[in-house]
């Protein structure tokens, strides 16, 4: 896992899975469809991503495909950062 994924995993564990064995949360564990976070938690997660990684989530970005796994979140953050640098 890269640095971004580690940070996201730490946040998800601390915020939504207190006391959980960290090994059970893998980069491909489904977060939303697996009942770990709901739509309101997802907003917290987005606010965390914005603050932690200096990106801005736009309208229509907050799609399930972008948010359902740590792997997908990592891809989303890098794409956003790249877009930010290019813009």
């Amino acid at each position, binding site marked *: 896992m890269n640095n971004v994924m580690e940070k996201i995993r730490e946040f998800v564990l601390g915020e939504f*899975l207190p006391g959980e064995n960290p090994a059970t949360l893998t980069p491909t564990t489904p977060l939303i469809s697996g009942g*770990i976070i709901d739509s309101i938690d997802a907003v917290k997660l987005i606010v965390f991503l914005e603050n932690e990684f200096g990106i801005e989530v736009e309208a229509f970005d907050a799609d399930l495909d972008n948010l359902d796994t740590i792997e997908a979140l990592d891809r989303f953050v890098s794409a956003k950062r790249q877009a930010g640098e290019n813009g």
Partner: protein
Amino acid sequence: MTVDGIHEYLTRSAARTPDAIAIDELDGRTLTYGELDRLTDRLADALRHAGVVRGDRVGFCLPKSADAIAAIYGILKAGAAYVPVDPSAPASRSAIILRDCTVRALLVDQAHLDALTAELESTGPLPEIFLLPTVGGGAGLREAIDARGPAPETPPPAERVTPEDIAYILYTSGSTGRPKGVTLTHENGISFTDWCSEIFAPTGADRFSLFPPLQFDMSTSDLFLSIKHGARIVPIDDRTGKDPFTLGKVIEEHGLTMWFSVPSVLSLMAQHGRLERYDLSSLRFVLFAGEVFPVTHLRRLRDLLPAVRMFNLYGPTETNVCTFYEIPDHVPEERTEPYPIGRACSHARSRVIGPDGAEVEPGAEGELCIDGAGVMSGYWNLAERTAEVFLEADGQDWYRTGDVVREEEGELVFLGRRDRMVKRRGYRIELGELEAALYRHPSFSELAVLAASDDAGTRILAVYGTENGEPISLVELKAFAAEALPLYMVPDRFVHVETLPRTSTGKTDYQRLKELV
């Protein structure tokens, strides 16, 4: 009353303004009043041809869309009652609902067909299936009707519905572990719609967000009030609805004038929606209901939308909206307590009773009871349960809401619940239903579910013990819960204990449990 059947609003508006847009989907697909009227006539004919008669139930499992709205009106035009099931809920739960009220026909999209029919087939013959290959813009519904074969030259004649006929059955969480069907008549819906007309006076220029899920009674004002006045419905699909970053943009782009949703969504929009970036001047009314709106978030929303009239509406599914309160222009800094639920609407009467069933003195705490044209006829197939929730007084049947209130300066103030029902994101959850579903996990030896509320909303906590005394992975437990239950019922936390505290009679001691965790 203005009409006998609630679907007649559509026929009348279509005759008045056939070319006006009735449904405007977010992706730009639209249906005019004329198109919606013809499509729903065709569906009604096809349903009758498939054997549906007045008084039957017809279910649907469809994402919110023009097709789903047309399904509702078509079913009503056929003289049947519509039964919506939550497309995001497990198929097993939807099948229980559709079997409970023995639907004669079912409209379902391709995405849900296999899981739902497999569940239904395991318990008996299938209802007549109308399969929508796609959903959106009404095209899928047209295809579903076409696939049923050509319409007969002379379709079975339409029977006129009466106001006492059942219009819809909405299932809510049941304390025994099975959802229960709140049975609502045309009169129930029409009386509520007429009250809305009186207070909000919409016109053909209005644009209604259809935000609530269709299995939720809040959706009925957007579905029927808009059509009655020839206005436009903008269905907010579930995905967009869960994204507070997008909703401001949707309001601006679609020029929405009426917004009705649960407070939790408005709280999120106020906190994270960046509403100040958008031109929201089209909005005339923001209505909310379903749960308490924490004042800190309401104040922020009020400041962001100073020109909008805001109402706190109250009413369980059994009565739909029955009391209302207009939020003042300014929410004072020092105010911390939520606003009242207000006073009875013109089509309802309220009464506050004590434990003996007698009316309490004004200002005293008691259970809120409601009487009037909006009150349900009962729970589907549950005569005993229905009898329990009605109180006879002054020759009338009053629905006992289970909500504890107090009257202050002529306005009713909500204080809490009598039982184990909680509201989360506006959804009703019977903690007993949750316990019954979670108990199916093979490793639990005992289990109790608790709820706690604060400004952030209602959190649900499941406390469990296991056979081997070991805790279970949270990821596994949440995945298990997400498969057994709609996502809004999945507990926020699971806490492992060695043994649950018990009362002297051996029942779970919820009071001590609350103190423990």
